[in-house]
């Protein structure tokens, strides 16, 4: 079935440093979604990318979809303590469109 590899698994940064997480697939994706889960919370949708080479920004967050639609990245500029949490990518798998999540990247930010 459809799988996505997400790296790194953990990232520890000093507040103010940048952070990037990557999501890779061996097959072409129709789209990709990104979610954030705060510690003790539930995943919350951030964005969906659909077009090849698409770049979307949300304040300090930049999302990118690769030209071949096989990879995606989430970049956070100048991290803040409020960015702490686990970031997941998710893709549609199977013939009926079930949502498959990557293993996530856990971000910790040292003040």
């Amino acid at each position, binding site marked *: 079935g459809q799988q996505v590899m997400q790296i790194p698994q953990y990232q520890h940064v000093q507040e103010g440093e940048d952070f990037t997480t990557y999501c890779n697939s061996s097959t072409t994706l129709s789209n990709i*979604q990104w*979610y954030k889960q705060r510690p003790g919370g539930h995943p*919350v949708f951030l964005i*969906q990318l659909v077009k090849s080479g698409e770049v979307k920004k949300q304040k300090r967050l930049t999302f990118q979809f690769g030209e071949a639609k096989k990879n995606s990245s989430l970049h956070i500029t100048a991290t803040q303590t409020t960015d702490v949490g686990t970031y997941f990518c998710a893709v549609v798998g*199977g013939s009926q469109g*079930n949502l498959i*999540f990557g293993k996530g990247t856990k971000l910790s930010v040292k003040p």
Partner: protein
Amino acid sequence: NAGVTQTPKFRILKIGQSMTLQCAQDMNHNYMYWYRQDPGMGLKLIYYSVGAGITDKGEVPNGYNVSRSTTEDFPLRLELAAPSQTSVYFCASSYGRATEAFFGQGTRLTVV
């Protein structure tokens, strides 16, 4: 709108007991999902449904059962609970294929 509502929030089960985790959404979403999340791990799909009367297995369906008799409700049944089923369970829903998924607050289940 309440969104996706899961009950209970916490539960302790003894080995061999059974229980049903409830999930309800009021957004008229077609797709509903059940995931489990083990400590420090990602989300594994247990079962999903693309509409009332239609369910399908995900990555880790063994030990679980679901039903979808209405658009709103998608209960998850655990029969003969085992310690390996200790996890946080999330229900989610989305309007259609490849649309934003909304998650419930989760049910933290411990099997002892």
